[in-house]
């Protein structure tokens, strides 16, 4: 049995101290990262609960339930930040990505606790793959917030639609990595390739000035 709360406290404690010491943008980023880790903790509870209610086993829960729960819970801190603090668009987009990074970090820590840290190659593939997948999902929503919608109702409807894109992308990733061999490798490579494409096209997207 993994005491996930104890791990969370150990990882989050130095970050909480750091938020007290740091100021400005750095502090905000640390808070988003802690929020992402908290979302990961809560999503593991909720996924487990839903799986128990539905009578789903571990594999079914990880590929059919957890992508939906994880993406919704990742969006909750961003929604809170947007609704309460009314930040500008780039700050909201940064929040999406930092929360995704916090989420991925904590998920990887939990994976290490359960599966050990012996095989560096598979851990590196998993670490980069999962990290990239969460960042891509965060970036999808950040893209919508930054570039697509100006009017409030369009932004609300569009964000829900992009959340569904992130959920489906996450679902495809989980189906592939639940296998062994080539499908698993392809699964881990897809987010890495997507991240590379995003980096490559970032300048182009910014210069597009979508109208």
């Amino acid at each position, binding site marked *: 049995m993994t005491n996930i709360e104890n791990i969370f406290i150990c990882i989050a404690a130095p970050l909480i101290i750091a938020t007290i010491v740091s100021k400005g943008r750095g502090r905000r980023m640390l808070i988003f990262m802690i929020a992402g880790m908290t979302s990961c903790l809560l999503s593991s509870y909720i996924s487990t609960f839903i799986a128990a209610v*539905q009578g*789903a086993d571990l594999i*079914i829960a990880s*590929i*059919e*339930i957890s*992508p*939906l729960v994880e993406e919704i819970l990742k969006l909750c801190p961003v929604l809170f930040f947007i609704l309460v603090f009314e930040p500008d*668009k780039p700050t909201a987009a940064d929040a999406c990505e930092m929360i995704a990074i916090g989420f991925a970090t904590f998920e990887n820590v939990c994976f290490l606790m359960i599966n050990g840290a012996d095989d560096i190659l598979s851990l590196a593939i998993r670490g980069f793959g999962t990290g990239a997948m969460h960042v891509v999902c965060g970036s999808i929503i950040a893209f919508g917030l930054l*570039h*697509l919608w*100006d*009017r*409030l109702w*369009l932004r609300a*409807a*569009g964000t*829900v*639609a*992009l*959340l*569904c*894109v992130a*959920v*489906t*992308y996450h*679902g*495809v990733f989980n*189906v*592939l990595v*639940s*296998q062994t061999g080539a*499908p698993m490798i392809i699964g881990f490579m897809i987010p890495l390739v997507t991240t590379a494409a995003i980096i490559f*096209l970032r300048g*182009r997207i910014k210069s*597009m*000035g*979508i*109208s």
Partner: protein
Amino acid sequence: MPVIESTDNIIQLFTTGFCAGLSAYRAFKTGRHAWVLLFFAAFVYFLADIYWQLYLVFYGETPHYSYIPDAGWYACYLFLILLVNDIRGRRDKTPYNRFLLLIPVFTVGMCVFYLQFGDFIGNILAAVLMSILIRVTVDALIQCKRRELLKNDALHTDRNRNGLYISVLVFCFAEYAAWTTSCFWMGDTFANPYFYFDTVLSFTFLIFPYALKSALKEQGKVTDGYEDRNTPDGKVAQND
């Protein structure tokens, strides 16, 4: 693994993938908002289909809980609503046609029928989204026809937009026909009409890019939709 269902899925993967690829290319080329929306509509449908197909390949059966593909398909309807709204632009200040009231009658009626086969929340969500999509599209089509009758300046532009609205309505019809025939599942055979309607739906994704290109062709640099977002100085407005 069901062969005909897989073939149907693969055809749909190709058409949605083609639509997403072409839309992404045109979005980068033109920077138009509408192309980004069509890209996401096709891409999310593609992702939902690929999830479904991978599940079929790896586990030999359809997903136990269809939350994830359903989320993808519903997101596609939402993107199409946003796309039609974007193309239509600001609505004329004319009263709504009362025949639009028949749309919720149809969608709610179909929803009640589908509820007999289960999935309470999914059916209601689909009915709500389809009601909005059909209503927005039919209303936009009626507006076009009204402008044509009035011999407005926007006559040519409106005719070009008709193609997109009609293809969205064909998409909705194919979706409803596929849902209805899937209620009387005849198995993985060519005699099953579900596969024919699903193929029609797949082919609408090939029509969307051409219909959208045509709709955008005559719109000029500033369309109704963009007027909403632009300030008098020509700068894009921030938050409303």
